């Protein structure tokens, strides 16, 4: 086995030391710091982006909450207005109905009063008209002169009787 030839050991170990040290120094001082830097930059960038996304998300959620609040406020306000209007309209209607029924009642009462007045008047006219008829009829039938007051009283009584 050529590997076991001791005469080659010194040169191999010498060059191993030289090359390995060179590679170690290059990796340690040049290559690895650069890689660490690149990886850290990326890591920071990713974390920064995530953070930014988080902030934006929170902001969007805030806006959404505000929007929803506005919407809810508007809805409740609209409902209030609607409710109030409906109430007002109901009240108005009731008031008008009351006024109308009152007017109708008053008119009915006035009509009734007029009817009653005219009725009384008609009765009076009948009495006056009957008075002469009663006096002359009595004269013709029994030949007696009936006093105006007696005749009036009798007519009134008859009228009262018929009315009852």
């Amino acid at each position, binding site marked *: *086995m*050529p*590997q*076991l*030839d001791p*005469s*080659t*050991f*010194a*040169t*191999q*170990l*010498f*060059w*191993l*030391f030289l*090359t*390995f040290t*060179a*590679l*170690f120094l*290059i*990796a*340690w001082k*040049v*290559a*690895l710091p*650069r*890689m660490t*830097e*690149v*990886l850290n*930059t*990326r890591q920071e*960038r990713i974390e920064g982006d995530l953070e930014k996304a988080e902030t934006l998300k929170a902001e969007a959620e805030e806006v959404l909450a505000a929007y929803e609040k506005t919407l809810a406020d508007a809805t409740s306000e609209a409902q209030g207005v609607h409710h109030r209007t409906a109430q007002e309209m109901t009240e108005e209607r009731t008031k008008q109905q009351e006024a109308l029924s009152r007017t109708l009642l008053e008119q009915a009462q006035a009509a009734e009063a007029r009817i009653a007045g005219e009725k009384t008047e008609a009765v009076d006219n009948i009495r006056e008209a009957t008075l002469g008829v009663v006096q002359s009829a009595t004269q013709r039938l029994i030949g007696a002169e009936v006093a105006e007051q007696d005749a009036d009283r009798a007519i009134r009584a008859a009228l009262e009787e018929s009315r009852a």
Partner: protein
Amino acid sequence: MAQAGAGESQGPLAQFMIQKIIPFEVGGVDVSFTNSSLAMVAAVVLVSSFLVFSMRRGALVPGRWQIVAEMSYEFIANMIRDNVGQEGRRYFPFIFTLFMFVLAGNMIGMVPYSFAFTSQIAVTFGLAFAVFIGVTLIGFIKHGFKFFGFFLPEGVPWFLAPLMIPIEILSYLARPVSLSLRLFANMTAGHTMVKVFAGFIFLLGIAGVAPLLMVIVLTGLKLIIAFLQAYVFTILTCVYLNDALHMH
């Protein structure tokens, strides 16, 4: 798999031969630039340029190369977090380098006519021993002499101590050996096997289709093993580091 020079053996083990490219010595010790060194330098260049160029733009939304680089980063970071915990973050550059170096070594070895330095026991033991020394030092720095308590797990009856302590010390000392042998043996076995089967392709003529298919299957398997062994080497380092930081 290195093509052996003229007159050299063409056997399945020839690919592991160390070939000097630029010979030189320092203080009487041979430290020539070899094919093994070339593969290691290639690994360093490949890994560095991959890491640097893939992250050059550092895009927020990564492209294909950047995704691969980031995946390797996350892969090791997760491995350390799962096996060592928060204290392991300090050792991330070392463990990341270890993983990429072994993985690149294994992958470079997969290229035909190249050289797999991770199939060299000297290299794997060098790495494993460095990990062993480092982890032991971390243990002693963090826990002081209490780290010796590592060799006598809590809850063990006192009369078992004479038995337990040698066993624990032995298993602790065996760590760099098993760590290096595992990688070395896996890579050597894979490359040798492919070479053996590949040798049969032309010998068998038309029947050479069978070993050819075998080589294709083995190449796929070796790609998996190349990754898996880099992973195992790294995760065991994490486990040892965790032991040193948190004891048992």
